[in-house]
């Protein structure tokens, strides 16, 4: 017998594309490379799989070639199944323009939701990095009897457009929900992760769409708070919010810390990603690398300090790379100096070039550029 968890998953890779506009001109936010060999979407995808949720749709809007190639058949996440598995759902029905909010894309994929047999839906965005136990989240949702559960973290409010800030009572029932204001001090902020009964979601989306609403948070969630049906769930796991180039830089650099690395990539809950079959990293006779991470396929013969190297990166003899993120396939030629720089994929830095950003303002070079 196939054991069903009774939960399906919906991932929204484009929500908050704008906060990393530098990188999202060629891809969706969920497709942004992270941590040397991953992409942001790998976190919610792996979290779903670890919770036994195997009926998953990724709701894409535009620029989805990168994501479609990455996901393929879903094999890398054990989601190439006869029953269920991973579906890429291009939500292109109503408008071709950038979506504001997710009611329109949800309405576009209602047919998929209607065909599902599961009772509950986990909806996740891709701008929060974390190895989160969705099983516990779903369990708490069912036990509480809430209509919608909003996953949140407590801390300084992240700088995000339309950030959701919650007030909760002692039983974690949401008593007030504010959108887009950023109160000082410690607050409970949403991390773009919700649980809701499938039938309820369909009904709410149909209703909101009829009214011409667009924002799930503003037009559905807030209204349900008034009815007392929304509950908060404080995520106990370590998370990092990616809401700017700076926070993207910091989050990648944070992985240098062994404890954080263990929290994000625990041995028993690996983060799955597409395999590229690269050879192990080769260190040349002149290599000097310290305090850095390197993914397979890299060749290093220069000086690398406090940096993150993705797959198939090449650092030639005498090149210096300090406090940088070098994405897949990029090459730093002889004698070039890079400091506080983010090189997107397949960038070539020619011999002797010097690129410097500040630790608080990294210099970003977009995909495929030659310098």
């Amino acid at each position, binding site marked *: 017998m196939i054991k069903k968890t009774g939960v399906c998953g919906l991932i929204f890779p484009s929500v908050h594309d704008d906060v990393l506009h530098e990188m999202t001109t060629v891809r969706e936010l969920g497709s942004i490379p992270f*941590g*040397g*060999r*991953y992409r942001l979407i790998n976190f919610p995808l792996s979290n779903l799989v670890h919770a036994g949720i195997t009926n998953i749709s990724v709701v894409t809007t535009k620029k989805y070639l990168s994501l479609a190639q990455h996901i393929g058949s879903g*094999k890398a996440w054990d989601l190439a199944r006869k029953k269920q598995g991973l579906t890429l759902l291009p939500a292109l029905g109503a408008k071709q323009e950038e979506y504001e909010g997710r009611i329109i894309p949800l309405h576009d994929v209602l047919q998929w939701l209607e065909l599902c047999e599961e009772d509950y839906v986990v909806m996740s965005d891709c701008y929060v990095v974390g190895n989160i136990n969705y099983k516990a989240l779903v369990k708490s949702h069912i036990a509480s009897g809430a209509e919608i559960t909003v996953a949140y973290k407590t801390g300084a409010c992240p700088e995000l457009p339309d950030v959701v800030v919650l007030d909760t009572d002692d039983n974690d029932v949401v008593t007030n929900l504010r959108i887009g204001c950023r109160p000082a001090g410690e607050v409970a902020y949403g991390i773009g992760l919700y649980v809701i009964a499938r039938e309820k979601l369909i009904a709410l989306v149909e209703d909101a769409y009829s009214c011409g609403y667009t924002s799930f948070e503003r037009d559905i969630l807030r209204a349900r708070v008034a009815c007392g049906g929304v509950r908060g769930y404080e995520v106990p796991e370590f998370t990092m919010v990616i809401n700017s180039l700076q926070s993207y830089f910091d989050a990648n650099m944070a*992985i*240098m810390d*062994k404890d954080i*690395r263990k929290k*994000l*990539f625990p041995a028993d809950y*690996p*983060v*799955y*990603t597409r*395999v590229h*079959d*690269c*050879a*192990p*990293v*080769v*260190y*040349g*006779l*002149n*290599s*000097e*690398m*310290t*305090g*850095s*991470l*390197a*993914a*397979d*396929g890299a*060749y290093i013969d220069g000086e690398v300090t406090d940096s*993150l*190297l*993705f797959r198939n990166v090449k650092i030639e003899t005498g090149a210096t790379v300090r406090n940088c993120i070098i994405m897949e396939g990029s090459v730093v030629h002889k004698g070039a100096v890079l400091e506080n720089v983010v090189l997107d994929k397949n960038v070539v830095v020619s011999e002797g070039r010097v690129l410097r950003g500040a630790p608080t303002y990294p210099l970003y070079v977009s995909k495929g550029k030659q310098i």
Partner: protein
Amino acid sequence: MFRKQECVAMLLAGGQGSRLYALTRQIAKPAVPYGGKYRIIDFPLSNCINSGIETVGVLTQYRPLVLNEYIGSGEPWDLDRMDAGVHVLPPYQAIAGAGWYKGTANAIYQNIEFIERYDPEYVLVLSGDHIYKMDYSKMIAQHKEKNADCTIAVLEVEMEEAKRFGIMNANEDGSIYEFEEKPANPKSNLASMGIYVFSWQKLRKYLIEDEANPDSSNDFGKNIIPNMLNNGEKLYTYRFDGYWKDVGTIDSLWEANMDLLDPNVPLNMRDTKWRIYSRTAGLPPHYIGKNAKVQNSMISEGSEIEGNMEFSIAFPGVVVEEGAEIVDAILMPGAHVGKNAKVQYAILAEDVVVEEGAVVGEKPEEMENLDEWGVAVVASGIRIGAGVKVPAKAMIEEDQKGGEQA
């Protein structure tokens, strides 16, 4: 119904590899880790798929558990196919009785039925103990062009080395007139690489005849090839001039790994046009610590290196703690080297633990008697206690408690 395949590859993977001693205590030779993230069998399997051969039978016999698990559905090599793909073929029981594979030829004989399903023109016979990248399709093309019955891949070796190999004596047009196994006075330096292309109908006939002979040792080199030569069949050499290494001994396995660190050795693992595929653990990138020093080494995913590494190879999930020194060593998956320990000229098999301050292996330049020098080997899962010294050439198969001499 199975679709016809022009060529079926049969990979002989049943050997114990007894000269790898501790490394093949629990696994068959083709499953021995090699090159920082691979196992030996990744090479012939990847060569097959890169050469367009999509049907591969893997003949297993000795300790097949790890090998079977590793091959699985064949997905890492793109060999999970609807009506082709990789198939593990262990010996089996039949009405006439059960039999182990008596020899390399007998292993193929027992699987005639498997081969016939695909109605092939050619059968490619491979072994699972060599490291090389080779386009088999070119060899098959030559086989067709020469209208040969059997084509044997050969490599030019140094004349003084020739007595260690099976030597093919051939005419100028490549036709073989004599085969000598490890000749004392070799007439040629063309060594057999253990890669054969046979026209299937011909091979089938010889396999059946060979099986009927009770005195035969049912071996390709000892029986099938000499019989074909005696009967005047058309046997040709196929010259290969790339990197090829037998990794059947501790020394050759260690050398073949070290070859990957030598930029002058023509085995390019970074060549994306002829990738070697493997089943990977999917670990995060490896970390090189603030005080680490890594030079001329190869390191794979998930490893944490805080000590020094020189001329060494670390497989996935290796830990080298601060102050540890790794020189000319191979650390297989999950090996852990504690603080201030030294591992030099040694192979640590999977999940070996070397505790604080222990020393495994010796440098040849520090030996009083160089004849006693050799690579030290620690078998998988073994623990070397704090402060223990493991001498050169040692073969450690039991835990060594701290404070004792190995």
